[in-house]
């Protein structure tokens, strides 16, 4: 076996362990060095397996999509979610906007805490999430104040308006649960609020 043949054979027997390879390697320092270098590369390759961390944006997007698709369900049904909707819209569609909004607020809360023990905090906040908007809205405004203070007034006003629209739409639904327009207006209101939260989150992300 010559050097060319040795190199070709490394494709099949990578470690130079065949008898012909061993025989050649014993007498050829250049091929020995080549094999050593290739082994170094292979050994170093595993360093790259978990070398990189995705930005927080990835999880935020996943979470948002899970909400949109109804794959995440809140621990207990919110008071605004009327069971009869499920026949028409599917329960998930109703759960999604409300929960999406709360979950984004949860995301803001977690980011603000930014502590290593995220799981423990998640458990604490999961309880707090049961309280609707006040906690989440305050966290949203704090996030905007911290990261985009120039927009604080505008966010506050839009938040006020969208909360009002949710209350109005909820009132309509309570009055007429079978009113398709009422149900749709509630969903639109939640989605608008969800969009507001998402804008605040996008702005505050590095």
């Amino acid at each position, binding site marked *: 076996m010559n050097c060319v043949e040795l190199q070709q054979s490394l494709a099949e027997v990578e470690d130079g362990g065949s008898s012909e390879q061993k025989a050649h390697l014993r007498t050829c320092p250049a091929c020995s060095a080549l094999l050593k270098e290739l082994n170094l590369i292979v050994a170093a390759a595993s360093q790259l397996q*978990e070398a990189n961390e995705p*930005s927080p944006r*990835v999880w935020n997007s996943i979470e948002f999509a899970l909400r949109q698709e109804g794959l995440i369900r809140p621990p207990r049904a919110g008071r605004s979610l009327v069971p009869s909707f499920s026949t028409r819209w599917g329960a998930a569609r109703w759960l999604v906007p409300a929960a999406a909004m709360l979950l984004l607020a949860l995301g803001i809360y977690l980011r603000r805490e930014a502590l290593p023990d995220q799981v423990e905090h998640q458990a604490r906040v999961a309880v707090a999430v049961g309280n609707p908007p006040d906690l989440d809205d305050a966290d949203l405004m704090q996030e905007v104040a911290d990261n985009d203070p120039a927009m604080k007034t505008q966010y506050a006003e839009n938040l006020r308006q969208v909360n009002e629209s949710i209350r109005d739409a909820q009132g309509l639904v309570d009055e007429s649960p079978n009113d398709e327009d009422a149900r749709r207006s509630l969903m639109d209101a939640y989605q608008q609020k969800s969009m507001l939260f998402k804008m605040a989150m996008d702005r505050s992300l590095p």
Partner: protein
Amino acid sequence: MTEPRQQQGSELSEAEAIERAKQGDAEAFRALYEKHKRRVYSLCLRMTANTAEAEDLAQEAFLQLYRKIATFRGESAFSTWLHRLSVNVVLMHLRKKSLPVVSLEETVQGTEEDSPKRDFGADDVALAGSIDRMQLQRAVESLPPGYRMIFVLHDIEGYEHNEIAKIAGCSIGNSKSQLHKARMKLRDLLKMNRAEKAGKSRAG
């Protein structure tokens, strides 16, 4: 090698997280994500050499996983399942871009790649000791797409040639030969890099 995980102590076990994720538990989804995000994202980044694409693909891989999580019965390791899914997501994406990243036959660049060199560059700087991770990362990113894919799947991610052959739609022999060429190319890139650095330090 791998950096220590941030979650300690009271984290959910994976089995517990999977069961809770099936029930739609947000915390469980998050726990699974935290556990596997680096592996999935690094795979996507190695294969695409682009952070924006890698993030999109990592997102897609996790979403596909979560959509199917109800069907996971524990026959194989969860991480294996996630990993296979991630590879599929990346390959689908690369195929859609119509870049010759899956057809291994097309990655050979010129006849000089085919004929093994007799002279291994005796004057070259040797690759001794350990290889710097960032340098290796850059060298992998510089590989032609087909070589990069084989190297990532086999040497970084640990797939066997028979698995790669199925994934990439090539023969086992082809997978082996392309892997060897990928390693040889990486060797050349790393040695060039070291030679440049050595040249600079001599001149400086």
